[in-house]
């Protein structure tokens, strides 16, 4: 029998009736003490030891599968009861250490859980199309002044180039100001909000500029109001994407020992 560790997914106050499989297809179980319930599973250390992880975390497929499995468990628990998600790949020697953590840090966990009780996290991303705006200037010049272009193509190029750059810079400033406005409006409806760094296009899967990557902790009774507001704030070249509800990942960022 290979060596096992105890992988921790999340901490809540209640047991949930059913939970999907965890990382490496392991069965998820609970460790309960001090009024808290930890969701854990036993994982093989030949996969989840520090050394093998250094290699396997470089493997995007492995990382994606593991991240999804972790999220699946967190999400299932959070759908039923207030939940504090724990960061990916937090592995203990055994259940006894987890019991110890819950007892030592019970107050901290309870404080975090009470902050997210009755609330859900929503994500709002705002995108602007980088091609919008400046392309028009160039096209207009080219076709609007055919004589000038034919005689002095270099000059026409410079002129278009200048107009294009100025247009882009202006569009960028406007878009960023717009993102500030959108965030402030959404934060006004939320109990808490957090503006994350915009995602790289490789992560977002979209070539557009991500102007806003916001997380909002919204009272359950105000979900519809929040979504309606998000709907009203889009338009004029800015697309908004609403995701969620999420487990409150963005509002349980605390470090414990």
């Amino acid at each position, binding site marked *: 029998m290979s060596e096992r560790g105890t992988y921790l997914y999340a901490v809540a106050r209640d047991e949930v009736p059913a939970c999907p499989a965890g990382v490496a297809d392991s069965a998820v179980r609970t460790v309960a003490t001090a009024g808290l319930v930890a969701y854990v599973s036993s994982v093989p250390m030949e996969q989840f030891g520090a050394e093998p992880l250094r290699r396997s975390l470089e493997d995007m497929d492995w990382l994606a599968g593991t991240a999804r499995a972790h999220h699946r468990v967190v999400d*299932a628990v959070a759908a039923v009861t207030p939940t504090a998600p724990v960061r990916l790949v937090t592995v203990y020697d055994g259940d006894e250490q987890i019991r110890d953590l819950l007892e030592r840090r019970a107050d901290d966990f309870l404080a975090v859980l009470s902050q997210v009780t009755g609330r859900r996290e929503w994500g709002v991303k705002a995108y602007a199309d*980088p091609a919008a705006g400046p392309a028009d200037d160039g096209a207009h010049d080219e076709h609007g002044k055919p004589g000038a272009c034919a005689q002095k193509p270099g000059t026409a190029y410079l002129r278009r180039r200048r107009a294009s750059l100025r247009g882009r810079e202006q569009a960028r400033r406007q878009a960023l100001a717009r993102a500030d406005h959108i965030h402030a409006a959404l934060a006004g409806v939320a109990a808490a909000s957090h503006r*994350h760094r915009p995602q790289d296009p490789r992560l977002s899967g979209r070539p557009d500029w991500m102007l806003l990557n916001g997380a909002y902790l919204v009272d359950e009774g105000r979900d519809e109001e929040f979504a309606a507001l998000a709907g009203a704030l889009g338009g004029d070249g800015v697309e908004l994407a609403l995701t969620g509800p999420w487990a409150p990942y963005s509002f349980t960022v605390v470090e414990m020992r």
Partner: protein
Amino acid sequence: MDRTTTGGPVVRPYGPPAAAGREPANLGDILERVLDRGVVIAGDIRVNLLDIELLTIKLRLLIASVDTARELGIDWWKHDPWLSGGDRELIAENRRLRRRLAAAEGHPVSAREVTEGARDE
């Protein structure tokens, strides 16, 4: 992936896991959350991500876009030979050409346009 429309978000609640037709959440959004948010437990435990530096470096590259325009990928000036490196000769040439263009088109460059051009440069 998020589905978006201009003018408003598409609300696609993930709902409880058992819900029929539920699409998996966007991988980028999941990675960002499970790697960078939630409770961090440090100290005397077997393994945690804080120990795994290689991962952080690599994932920061993937996840960590930043607030400024440059890091949003709006770095066109860096690759533009007409603007990069403070190439004053080219800029001056550009200004001269713009004046000539304006003259050829039959209208003088206004003082305001010249000023704006200078400020941009």
